[in-house]
């Protein structure tokens, strides 16, 4: 593998890892703070991609579609938390698994009723629809760099929100000791709603910004969900920092696995997970 090729794969793995982080961050936050395991998290990714496709065709602008789509995702997350999830924080994980599995079916069918079962593609915005030439016949599409940049910006924003703001302080307090936080007069239910909506929005944004490079298709949520689980397990459940490190690691192993050992590429990531579990059964960054 020459250097240009290596660089392309490295950038691809970075972009994939960062995208996974957006999904895994929401999953791990929701678990860490509310104690809920959410199998339907991949569905939010799928819904985000379909929203981007549908809204972009309505507004003729992907950026506007993403803005409106994010607002819809926040509203959906808020409503779901209020109607369903808040009643499941103290239930068995088993019940949560089943509830959210049922939701997968419901979201798939809602998607099918609203937008059909066809595969769609979303156009890359004109402004960033060009490539940086690396060698004579190799080049790198700018839009993939834009995805990475958006993810990095959102990751930094998330970091700032959680560790530097008053709201973030309340979120951390709620994760640490729910009863005590409530006793101090903080509206923990409101915090839960915010965190859940945030997680849903992150997953939907990931689906929206990824839609121009991965086509929009039914069932796109389930494959990404399982990758998210792997990321969260390796990183340590509840740890956003762990999710970042592990998402980048998974991105590297998956991308280079496909190039170097294509026969077992599908399994490479799981072997990484098995290895981590052997030494750190609770993930790299246990909370």
């Amino acid at each position: 593998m020459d250097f240009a090729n290596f660089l392309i794969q490295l950038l691809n793995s970075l972009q994939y890892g960062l995208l996974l982080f957006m999904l895994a961050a929401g999953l791990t936050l929701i678990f860490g703070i509310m104690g809920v395991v959410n199998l339907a998290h991949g569905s939010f990714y799928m819904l985000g991609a379909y929203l981007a496709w549908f809204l972009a065709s309505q507004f003729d602008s992907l950026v506007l579609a993403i803005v409106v789509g994010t607002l819809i995702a926040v509203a959906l997350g808020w409503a779901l938390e209020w109607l369903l999830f808040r009643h499941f924080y103290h239930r068995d994980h088993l019940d949560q698994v089943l509830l959210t599995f049922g939701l997968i079916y419901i979201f798939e069918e809602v998607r099918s009723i609203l937008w059909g079962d066809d595969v769609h593609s979303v156009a890359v915005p004109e402004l960033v629809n060009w490539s940086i030439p690396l060698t004579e016949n190799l080049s790198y599409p700018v839009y993939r760099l834009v995805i990475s940049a958006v993810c990095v910006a959102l990751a930094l924003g998330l970091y700032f929100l959680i560790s530097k703001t008053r709201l973030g302080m309340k979120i951390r307090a709620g994760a640490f000791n729910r009863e005590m936080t409530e006793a101090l007069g903080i509206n923990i239910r409101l915090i839960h709603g915010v965190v859940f909506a945030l997680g849903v929005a992150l997953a939907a944004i990931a689906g929206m910004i990824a839609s121009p490079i991965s086509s929009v298709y039914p069932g796109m949520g389930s494959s990404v969900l399982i990758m998210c689980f792997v990321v969260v397990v390796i990183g340590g459940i509840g740890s956003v920092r762990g999710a970042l490190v592990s998402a980048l690691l998974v991105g590297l192993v998956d991308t280079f696995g496909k190039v170097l050992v294509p026969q077992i590429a599908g399994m490479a990531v799981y072997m990484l997970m098995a290895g981590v579990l052997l030494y750190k059964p609770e993930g790299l960054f246990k909370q």
Partner: protein
Amino acid sequence: MSSPKATLEMLPKGVQALLALGAVALAAFPLIPSDSSDFYLQMLSQMMILAIFAMSLDLLQGVTGLVSLGHAAYFGLAGYALAFLTPADVPVSLWWSLPVAALGAGLAALVIGFFVVRTHGIYFIMVTMAFAQMVFFLFFDNKELGGSDGLYVNFRPDASLFGWTGIDLENKTTFFYFTLAMLVSIYAFLRRLLFSPFGRVLAGIRVNEHRMRAVGYGTFGYKLAAFGLAGTLAGVAGYLWAAQTGFVNPELMGFHMSAHAIMMVILGGMGNFAGAIVGAFAFEYVMHFFKDLTKHWQLLMGSFIVLVVVFAPRGLLGLGERFMKKKDVA
């Protein structure tokens, strides 16, 4: 997070009588002459196979308190084993291929269990799911293993023994009775196991693993043994499934199959194996019913699952239990 509660470990007389009645009704079913009996025979056979699968999961989920979201892997592996063991031109003998397939699935469960059993709670759920997905991709990505299309099982296994050909599994009625016999014997075995010292330790792990360790039980070994045994029994079910349907594909080990098994156990009521059987029949019936009703069956199925979890998390037997308790008070 409390650990999942078992429903009705000891079955009340009423439930026992109902189960016995159900078994008799099943056994009598092929005797009823009907035009579409072939169709129903196959459907009931499939339900019984899924009931075996659900019982094997119940050993983990309801008895030991280990919620596996990847149990379909062992179901599928044994099905694939039958596909590979069956030559292109002749059937394979049931008497060695069934044990080989089931033990193969059990061995895979032991290997994967070695990694997953050291995790707890939510980790266990995620990790079992991830490993099942690994097995799924192994078969999905490799053309030599059938790829995404899967493989055909050209013949049902041959059950002749030393020249005696009393059991012909190609015959639908015979296959039905064979499956019923497997279902009843595995149920009897698991019920016996539940109240054996081994089963008591597993139940103890569900209730409080720390205490079991403090009392001196090596819980890792017990959990691993349960995981392996559950994988083996899931393998029996997967073998029968492949024999009945005549083909295997990666979907058999997929995420949906695993989640359906959990749902069956929950729907019936877990921790007593009878619930798993009831749940498997009820779940399959509901699924067929919705699929016949509308092409938007996923919406109904999803709502059904959500409603069961919200209103009857302890399953049908749990509802029965509540009803009976009220009667006791009165």
